[in-house]
């Protein structure tokens, strides 16, 4: 039995002397964190970028053309580039716009089939540019595309600009609904006031919409906020509204509850009521805005609701205009009343483009943190109403 277990252990790779060892010396590897994919004469151009080195060396970027992704990567691994590119830690895949328009089925196929890459790899579409350009543009002495995308992944949900989808999420959405959203990014310049100039960076620019595997349009930044809310990914949104006498009040949306209520008549879907409950905190007010009064708080909440309403309305409007239910509203309507939905499931795509979505948003202010009313500056203190 001992011998048998030793053989089994060797087989499962726990031994350094296993027959098929995947062992590699770490100092000989160039750990790739970002892979850009662009269309090139019927084939692809692969741009592979590492992160900033542990010794603070700038990111290394390699590029190869190939008839397919696997051929380009094979070429990259087999033609010396200093170190062996190692793709098992690829965190982000960037698709150039022209490649996105011609189809990404091959990209998803490669990731699903590969023993190196994973379905939880983030995927982005580079709006109006080639993926290679954004990777090259972002590379600096102390930063690179990998670091910037890591920041976007970490904070996009938190600041409400969108959701970073993974290859798995996109593949699942395409397999079940025939469409998907992918976060769109584009190059931008930072407004750096020190050091004599701006730096290249990457910014979020809404979503790219895919039908089957081809990109058919973009969701702009405002609609993307609404879409992210409806899909349930929003974790925090900073909102600024004009309160009394035009003075701005800054709030943070901390929680959003969305409820879908389809209205059926004679088995036909008449409209869908979307009820959104928002919880918000006060982040900053000036001295003219009162918070002690219930009426004043309600007014600020109303203004928040109005602002969010515009985002949601625009998200639905753009989706219906494209005639693609890329936010997966079908599943949400179905979940509300599964039995009734069964009769219209096959007709959903036709119904979706014309159906009325009645949006109602109610906002509740939860807290004002350590300060009740704005700081008193008139020498007499605040008087509670």
């Amino acid at each position: 039995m001992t011998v048998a277990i030793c053989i089994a252990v060797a087989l499962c790779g726990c031994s350094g002397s296993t027959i098929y060892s995947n062992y590699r010396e770490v100092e000989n590897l160039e750990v790739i964190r970002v892979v850009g994919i662009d269309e090139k004469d019927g084939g692809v151009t692969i741009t592979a970028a590492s992160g900033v080195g542990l010794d603070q060396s700038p990111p290394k970027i390699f590029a190869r053309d190939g008839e397919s992704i696997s051929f380009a990567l094979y070429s990259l691994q087999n033609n010396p580039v200093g170190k062996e590119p190692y793709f098992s830690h690829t965190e982000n895949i960037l698709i150039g716009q022209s490649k996105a328009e011609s189809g990404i089925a091959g990209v998803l196929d490669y990731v699903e089939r590969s023993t190196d890459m994973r379905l939880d790899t983030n995927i982005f579409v580079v709006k109006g540019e080639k993926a290679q350009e954004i990777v090259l543009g972002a590379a600096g002495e102390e930063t690179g595309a990998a670091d910037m995308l890591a920041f976007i992944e970490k904070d996009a949900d938190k600041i409400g600009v969108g959701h970073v989808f993974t290859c798995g999420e996109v593949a699942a959405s395409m397999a079940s609904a025939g469409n998907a959203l992918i976060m769109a990014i584009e190059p931008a310049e930072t407004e750096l006031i020190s050091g004599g100039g701006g730096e290249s960076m990457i910014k979020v620019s809404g979503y790219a919409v895919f039908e089957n595997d081809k990109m058919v349009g973009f969701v702009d930044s405002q609609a993307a906020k609404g879409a992210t809310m409806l899909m349930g990914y929003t974790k925090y949104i900073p909102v600024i509204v004009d309160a009394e006498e035009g003075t701005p009040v800054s709030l943070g949306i901390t929680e959003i509850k969305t409820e879908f209520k389809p209205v059926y008549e004679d088995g036909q879907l008449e409209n869908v009521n979307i009820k959104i409950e928002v919880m918000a905190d006060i982040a900053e007010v000036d001295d003219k805005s009162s918070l002690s009064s219930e009426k004043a708080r309600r007014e600020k909440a109303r203004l928040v609701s109005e602002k969010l309403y515009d985002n949601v309305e625009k998200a639905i409007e753009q989706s219906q205009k494209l005639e693609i239910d890329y936010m997966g509203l079908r599943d949400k309507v179905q979940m509300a009343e599964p039995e009734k939905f069964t009769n219209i499931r096959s007709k959903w795509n036709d119904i979706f483009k014309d159906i009325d979505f009645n949006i109602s948003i109610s906002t509740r202010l939860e807290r004002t943190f350590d300060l009740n009313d704005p700081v008193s500056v008139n020498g007499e203190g605040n008087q509670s109403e």
Partner: protein
Amino acid sequence: MLTGKEIRVNKEGKISSRQLSGCIFIGLLSPAIRLLPGLSAQLAGKSAWLSPVVAAIPALLFLLMMQSFLKNRGDGEGLTHMFFRSIGRIPGAVVSLVFAAWLFVYGGFILRTASERLISSVYENGNVGVFAITTAAAAALAAWGNMKSIVRTAEVFMPIIGFVIIVVLVMATGDVKPENILPVSVKDSGGIMLGAVPIINVVCGSGYFGFLYEYVNNAQKPFSETMKKMLFLLLLIIGIMITTIGTLSANLAVDLQNPFFIMIRNIIAFGVIERTEAIVIGLWVFTDFIFTSSLIAIITTILKTSFGAKSRRPFVIPAAALIVAWAFLISSNAFDLRKISETIIPAINLLFTVIIMPVIFIIGKARKKI
């Protein structure tokens, strides 16, 4: 003074019903993880996670039948002896040998799928033959020894494997999207029942282990411990279905070779713990090893008892060699292997376990021989 029954006591020493049930659990976990998420999703769609609940009833009936089948066995008697009693010595031996013949093919299939899985998930450019021969060699060594060695190994690994799978399932729960597994309506009941068929197929594989009751202490009630383990297995299958289909969606799970493994590859717990698949792959190899060595032990036990040999040991190496041969012969590529793993193999398995075994049981009961 020795009685007739005592003379039949196997020299290998006794194992307990609980130990054997652990071996059954570990053995069946391998096909359960490999086959079920994809195949049940194909048959039942997003409601596949309810199929184990439906499968529990026929599975329980099958296990009760096995319990009744072996209840009145004598000391040192297993399923082969109960076949002898039910339908006569010669017909019983012939049927048992047909079972052994099928288990050669099935063992080859298990060996081949285990090897293919290592290539498709880790060793991209590996050679199926090397993996098949190495696993078979390890399994043959285990089967060559005392039955106690196999079941104790399973006994040791069962809590480890069970714990790791539960931890993995808990970690994966956060990625489950409700719309991928809900809603479920009455109209899904047909699919749910269809999805139960491959689950019944896996659980009824426990019937083959009835042949190993020759080594189980006669004082213990057969298959009672196995029922508990199979209930645990069904609960794990529900968890596996919910996390796999809930994360990947039924449509995507159907397209993947090993959806449960792909789901595990995507797990990131608390934003820091990831790449847990290495542990699962390592433990998965052990389930294949236990299952293959158990199948060799079952085959050699049938051959020993049917031919009236003193020991099963002379049959071990030829049996392992034949299983390796079947691993090569069973299909020429992974496409055919997947096709037969979803159609021919389950069909023949069900023929042996839920048709032939019950028929012999009914004959034995009718003749009041068991």
